[in-house]
């Protein structure tokens, strides 16, 4: 009976180690705090109606940002824990973590950073910006979008669930290479949590990708041909097409691994004809394109920023697009370079080496188009532009290391060493994360209605750059010294320790950078009156997202203009503003909670799969199906904003634009760090009742 009710769950699954107790306590405290705050402010209905059930891609985008931001802190903490262990654990000292716990941490670090941080930020940006850029009011399927987001949230909960129940995450490395991830070598629930957190969020990604492809292809403003589409939208389109191509492969691979583990099948086991090398192939057929799925929207972000901040049209626009398309096409045929060392033979290795080198060609073309765009421009070094320059510096180092790794005989020496780890961190942090930071600094005024503090933004940037060099130059060096990745201990005679210590120091500087980014946001909120963007166009932008107010009304653009050129909004500004037209009634999709319900059932089902609770599996799957069917019977999907209402919203906005003349962008009176600390300290002292006597002096 107990087994029927609880499957393999028992008292041992409850937290009993310092990190599971700590993690669980932190989550419970955090949740209690948030629930208390919402209850106290009586905001439950507001939260449910305005946010959680929203189908507005702008709100879903913001929710992606918030969850991804928290996950970034979680993954960053993992990174510091990894580096601390490695800095300590030399010779007779074995550090503060067991090998198994250490392995779980770097596995979680990889999964969280790729799936739940990078992917989520990219989806957040695409959600918010793409519909605005193409002049759409919402997405092709608003429901699929909310479903995708909530499946992602279910994945986030799943990846953190082991703290509370089970006590172990996969200790296999982020791709859970077989046969290590089979029951023979990983009998616990860790790998099952891994499978299901990726499975659920991965299906969300596939749905999201289908939705964005449809939206971009079918819902562009009249006149916006593909060759007039903004580059961020282009990057997103390439990325989403790749996602649709390869994410089903991940889904299938995860299912096969799940069949091995749950049903005792033998796809990837060592015995009975299982072939672990097949798993390695399948997972990298998805895994390599995945990197480019993240990278292409980031390339798009940089193209937008370079063009806007140079006050020039994008140069060699078509070459840039062909570059992105080239990257997408070739990214599908390079996966084998992740395991030259498996022994496939010279011809196979050399072929995939050449394919990998070919990818460097379109990538270099992108760099040339950015140089040409800056040529004869008037470049403002705002924070987004700084991130672009930082990206170029870091990304080229990573790219060069990448081409080196593409040469099979060299890869035999560099593979699985810290050189490789340093390479992909310089790519993903330098390319994707810097792109995300650039994008957030660039579009923040649009999203929040006020721009971000530039001064503190610069400090954060420099901390990131210095910390990054401090960590990753030693990491490349360690790789050359022959240090393999994922070591929880090494001999003192290797002489590696000083380099690991440098990496830790660099990591701490990066963390200070992250803290400064939080300070940047808080300080901007404190100064938001002064930083307010009343025009909707704080950077003298060129694309349509700047044509509406900041933040935009639910319908984005009141009147969707006929597009005649590539930098549509810039052209309109040259001609004295958007064409005037009569406001018309706008149909908007209604909010729905179906995505939440379906994701909740999907979560239950996957939780039940992890713990072998058969009745709950049935409940979960039946719940998903019933919710889907119920949703299809709902015909009341839209509401209408009358022309009068639209006119009222737009009049208010235009009044704002006229009342306050646009402030010069360079009057740098942003709050400095020192000023921020003074304000916070004064506020904190006031809170605990200490009044400074010198206050009046």
């Amino acid at each position, binding site marked *: 009976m107990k087994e029927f009710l609880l499957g393999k769950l028992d008292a041992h699954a409850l937290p009993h180690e310092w990190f599971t107790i700590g993690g669980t306590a932190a989550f419970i405290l955090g949740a209690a705090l948030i629930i208390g705050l919402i209850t106290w402010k009586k905001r439950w209905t507001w939260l449910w109606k305005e946010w959680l059930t929203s189908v507005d891609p702008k709100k879903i985008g913001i929710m992606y940002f918030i969850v991804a931001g928290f996950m970034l802190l979680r993954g960053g903490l993992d990174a510091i824990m990894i580096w601390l262990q490695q800095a300590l654990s030399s010779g007779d000292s074995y550090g503060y973590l067991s090998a198994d716990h250490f392995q779980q941490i770097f596995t979680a670090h990889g999964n969280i950073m790729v799936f739940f941080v990078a992917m989520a930020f990219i989806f957040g940006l695409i959600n918010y910006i793409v519909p605005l850029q193409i002049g759409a009011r919402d997405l092709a399927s608003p429901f699929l979008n909310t479903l995708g987001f909530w499946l992602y949230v279910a994945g986030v909960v799943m990846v953190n669930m082991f703290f509370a129940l089970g006590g172990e995450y996969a200790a296999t490395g982020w791709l859970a290479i077989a046969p290590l991830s089979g029951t023979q070598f990983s009998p616990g629930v860790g790998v099952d949590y891994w499978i299901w957190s990726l499975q659920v969020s991965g299906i969300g990604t596939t749905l999201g990708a289908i939705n964005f492809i449809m939206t971009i292809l079918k819902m562009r403003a009249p006149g916006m041909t593909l060759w007039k589409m903004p580059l961020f939208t282009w990057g997103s389109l390439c990325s989403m097409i790749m996602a649709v191509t390869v994410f089903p492969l991940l889904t299938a691979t995860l299912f096969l691994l799940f069949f091995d583990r749950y049903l005792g099948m033998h796809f990837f086991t060592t*015995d009975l004809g299982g072939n672990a090398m097949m798993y390695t192939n399948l997972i990298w057929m998805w895994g390599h394109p995945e990197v480019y799925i993240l990278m292409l929207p980031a390339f798009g972000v940089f193209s937008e920023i370079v063009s806007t901040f140079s006050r020039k049209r994008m140069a060699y626009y078509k070459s840039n697009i062909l570059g992105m398309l080239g990257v997408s096409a070739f990214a599908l045929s390079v996966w084998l370079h992740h395991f030259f060392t498996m022994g496939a033979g010279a011809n196979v290795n050399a072929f995939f080496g050449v394919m990998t080198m070919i990818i460097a060609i379109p990538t270099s073309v992108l760099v040339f188009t950015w140089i040409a765009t800056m040529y004869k421009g008037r470049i403002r070094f705002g924070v987004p532009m700084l991130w672009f320059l930082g990206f170029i510096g870091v990304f080229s180092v990573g790219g060069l290391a990448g081409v080196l790794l593409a040469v099979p005989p060299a890869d035999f020496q560099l593979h699985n060493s810290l050189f490789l780890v340093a390479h992909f961190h310089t790519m993903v942090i330098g390319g994707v994360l810097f792109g995300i930071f650039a994008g957030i600094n660039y579009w923040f005024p649009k999203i929040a209605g006020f721009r971000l503090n530039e001064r503190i933004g610069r400090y954060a940037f420099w901390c990131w750059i210095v910390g990054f060099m401090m960590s990753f130059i030693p990491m490349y060096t360690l790789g050359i010294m022959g240090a393999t990745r994922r070591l929880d201990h090494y001999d003192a005679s290797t002489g590696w320790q000083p380099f690991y210590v440098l990496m830790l120091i660099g990591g701490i500087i990066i963390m200070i950078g992250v803290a400064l980014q939080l300070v940047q946001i808080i300080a901007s909120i404190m100064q938001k009156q002064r930083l307010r963007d009343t025009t909707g166009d704080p950077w003298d932008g060129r694309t349509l997202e700047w044509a509406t107010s900041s933040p935009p009304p639910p319908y984005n653009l009141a009147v969707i203009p006929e597009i005649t050129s590539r930098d549509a909004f810039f052209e309109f500004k040259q001609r004295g503003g958007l064409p005037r037209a009569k406001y018309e009634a706008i149909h908007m999709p209604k909010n729905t909670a179906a995505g939440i319900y379906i994701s909740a059932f999907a979560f239950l089902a996957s939780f039940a799969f992890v713990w072998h609770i058969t009745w709950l599996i049935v409940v979960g799957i039946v719940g998903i199906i019933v919710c889907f069917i119920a949703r299809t019977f709902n015909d009341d999907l839209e509401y209408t904003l009358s022309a009068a209402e639209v006119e009222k919203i737009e009049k208010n906005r235009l009044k704002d634009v006229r009342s306050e003349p646009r402030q010069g962008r360079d009057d740098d009176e942003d709050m400095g760090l020192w000023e921020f600390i003074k304000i916070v300290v004064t506020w904190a002292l006031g809170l605990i009742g200490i009044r400074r006597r010198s206050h009046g002096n």
Partner: protein
Amino acid sequence: MSKKRETHTHVKMIGSIVLVLAGLALLVAFLLQGKNVALFHPRGMIAHEQLRLMLVTGGLLLVVAVPTLVLLFSTAWKYRESNHRSMHDPHVRYSKLLAVGMWLIPSTFMALLAFIMWPATHKLEPQKPIAADVKPLTVQVVSLPWKWLFIYPDQNIATINHLQLPVDTPVRLQLTADEMPMSSFWVPNLAGMLYAMTGHSNTLHLIANTPGDYPGSSAEINGAGFAGMKFTARVGSSEDFSRWIDTVRASGRPLDAAEYEKLLKPSENHPGALYSAAETGMYDKVLMKYMDPSGSEGHMHHGAHHE
């Protein structure tokens, strides 16, 4: 902040970045003194060739990357808003030639690299025997739960975590694994790595040209004992090698089926062991265990499924 001050701040920032980089480079160079920088200290022909290839490729890449980066950063700097001397022309016309050039330049370099890489990949393919006058030494390597078993079939001895090699003699390593996930055999001073997998025999050829002790490890994660799965590759003269064989033979403990069963039990940071004899055909038996379901009973977790 005025334009001038802004420029000043940027100059200061760029200066500090250069300083930090230079400082780091000096520090790294200082810390590397007297250490085994495995990839830059090749002690065998294969590792040597691999390093040469890395340097050639790296150098070639820098030839195209450095000018591109200089061009990018100097363009960004030259056309900064506060520089009133530079021409601003938002309607500048771009040459078609340049559009072709930006595709051609990287393509040419990559083609050049590919022409270097293709033959090098064949030349340095680990399965390819090394040509030499001396008869190659065969060592069979089995990755066991967190230790390396080295079987010398011709000498009929075996060791744990110790690989003795005669200098200037080509070595043919056969790699497999037993009761282990994928492992990766790596002695960076001698040659690149290759995977050791159950039911699969990979061949890695290498040669050591300088006597000495070189660290070896598993470069692929394979469970809790992964970090401790280390061994020493000791390279000595051929006389040293024969003497060593004799010592091992005299040690008196053979590797039989019972002893092998013990080795299959997981153990971490194994101190190493020497076996005076090894059962003939042991390596093939380990391989066959995963090929033939009937031979796998007792070891396989899913043994119950195949009736």
